[in-house]
């Protein structure tokens, strides 16, 4: 390998990269090193995976529950969604979102204006930016405090229920805490943030927060695709809870909502979580398709640009594989821990 001029050391790590990356979560410019480019790639992969997992879960649960709906048309629409999306390659969907939906949007001058100061154009989605002033930390503390108080109160309430059988209004108290405390802090700190709305100046927008079309296309494609698989898992999980459980709960006089929340969902989650984990892992791995639409994720930045410039194929590929393995391991460990809480306790 040395004969072919392929480096075998990690010297390249601190050399200047010299290429641009258009969206970075951590500071990066053309003078930064290859090592920094690597961290930019990792951060972008994590960002799109995390957003994708949240969005895919929400869509997937909605579609999965709709498939079981008593409403005929809702069930049919959800079924069609699953059957159509699942059977079309993800790459085709990504290219469609990127090249046929987001790229043909009008130029910034003719942007589509949505309510709330949001603009759509071929350079992405421009949102109003939030500017934090002194005192914003107070609101943050208030939010953390309200979460902590709610957890403490629900623990206390379940203790009371175990001892006396009385139910305390956990939901109402939680809601009150979650709206009241941050609102009070907001007023006390004197409106600690303001929105800056994007303005059209010359050929582009100034101010505001820009979401690049690459990111939007990747996020949309990944979550829409993965949601179709999650929907099937959710449907299977809920159907696997035997009908006798629901009927017994109704016979005991539990209303529909409580039957779902206390009887069906905990048992369904037990079946849902393991395959859901593997879908999350698939989503993370599929985020590497970013390379096809130019979103600077780990593969595009590191296994693409860095590999091409340094030629250090062995080291770069080894590091890339290691990063994906570590992300996969952490995700499955987290989901296993979550699963343990719901698993049947057997002797």
């Amino acid at each position: 390998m040395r004969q072919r001029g392929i480096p075998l050391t990690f010297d390249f790590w601190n050399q200047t990269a010299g290429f641009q990356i258009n969206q970075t979560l951590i500071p990066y410019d053309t003078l930064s090193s290859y090592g920094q480019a690597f961290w930019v790639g990792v951060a972008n992969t994590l960002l799109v995976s995390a957003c994708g997992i949240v969005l895919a879960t929400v869509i997937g649960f909605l579609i999965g529950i709709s498939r079981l709906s008593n409403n005929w048309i809702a069930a049919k629409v959800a079924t069609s969604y699953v059957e159509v999306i699942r059977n079309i390659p993800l790459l085709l969907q990504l290219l469609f979102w990127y090249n046929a939906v987001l790229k043909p949007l009008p130029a910034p001058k003719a942007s589509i204006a949505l309510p709330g100061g949001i603009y759509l154009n071929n350079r992405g989605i421009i949102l109003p930016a939030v500017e934090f002033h002194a005192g914003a930390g107070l609101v943050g503390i208030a939010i953390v405090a309200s979460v902590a108080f709610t957890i403490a109160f629900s623990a206390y309430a379940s203790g009371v229920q175990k001892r006396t059988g009385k139910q305390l209004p956990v939901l109402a108290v939680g809601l009150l805490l979650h709206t009241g405390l941050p609102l009070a802090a907001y007023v006390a700190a004197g409106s600690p943030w303001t929105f800056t709305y994007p303005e059209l100046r010359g050929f582009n927008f100034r101010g505001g927060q820009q979401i690049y079309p690459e990111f939007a296309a990747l996020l949309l494609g990944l979550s829409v695709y993965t949601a179709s698989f999650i929907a099937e898992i959710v449907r299977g999980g809920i159907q696997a809870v035997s009908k006798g459980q629901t009927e017994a709960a109704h016979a005991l006089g539990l209303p529909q909502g409580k039957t779902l929340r206390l009887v069906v969902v905990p048992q369904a989650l037990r079946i849902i979580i393991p395959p859901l984990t593997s879908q999350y892992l698939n989503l993370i791995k599929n985020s590497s398709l970013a390379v096809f639409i130019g979103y600077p994720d780990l593969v595009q930045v590191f296994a693409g640009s860095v590999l091409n410039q340094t030629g250090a194929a062995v080291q770069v590929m080894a590091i890339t594989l290691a990063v994906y393995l570590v992300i996969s391991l952490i995700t499955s460990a987290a989901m296993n821990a979550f699963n343990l809480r719901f698993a049947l306790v057997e002797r």
Partner: protein
Amino acid sequence: MTTTLPVAAAFHHEYIPATPPPADIRPSPVTWALKNLFSSPFSCLLTVCFTGLAVWLVSQFLSFALINAVWRGDSEVCRANPDGACWSFIGAKLNYLQYGAYPATERWRVDLTQVIGAILIAWLLWRNAPRRNTAALLFFGVYPIAGFALLRGVEAIGLPVIDTTLWGGMMITLLMSVVGIVFSLPLGVVLALGRRSGLPIVRAVCVFYIEVVRGVPFITVLFMANFMMPLFVPEALTPDRLLRPMIGTALFSAAYMAEIVRAGLQAIPKGQYEGAQALGVGYFTMMRLIILPQALTIVIPGIVSTFIGLFKDTTLVAIVGIADFLRAVEAARIDPNWAGPTISSTGYLFAAIIYWFFCFGMSRYSQSVERHLARGHKS
């Protein structure tokens, strides 16, 4: 006190005519709608929203793909019509999408290979077909070699050699999938057996391989196959540029196949193993004649869904410069002669329909097998 009925009176001597079903067991459309569409206020809301959504989507699709579409005419006609698909563009590019740059006079070879492949696959999938073992032998043993010889060409028998750089389009997609299927299944079986083996080193190697490959994205495996394989193999032996991603594909899906096969192996009752061993049957004979036939049969749905994934994943070979079907659509889409507002959407819609038919067909087949197996278990 007991009374005895005359025996003859206890039996009917003629068939009782079938009674018609009760009048209200088949609901009228109105009662059906009340029950399934308007059972509650929330249900009414859902009905309105989803009906609106469905009507909008279907009408958009129909107007784009059929009503306003351009069926014949050149790029000028398509440019003038921004509301409908430009199917004449697909018509003009159809040969390219199917064969890539494969020489026109030799395309019968591709067709022949595909027809033979289709016949063999149909033979394998048809449950009651005679001599399925022969079909398996032909498909997994003879067909890959014969097909490759036919596609690439052998000078000795008068078939001119066609360089793999000219191959492209649908033929690459089908080729990649078939190669993946043909090689990943046996490899997966070997890995699954290795994972359940009693030899610690064999087991450790198999577990490591399966878990690592399943933990990394397919793209990185393709990168590895494309860039690393030439580094470790002497230049004279470096595989062809088309062969490298094929090896990557087969190695990648073998790991997934191994997990499916393992599930099948675990589902076989221990008595089957013990029974075979009690009869003095050796390990390989036992696996070949007793365990694997049962294990593979019950995991057919899983195997088919891995194939569906493999078929969809073949689109990723474009990253290492292979012109598969989707890549051909991309190349055709940006042809300046056809530039127009609807060309991209038309190309993607066409590709989506093609991929959808393949994948949906496979999933339907696996569902029918699943139903068949479920029936078998009940009776």
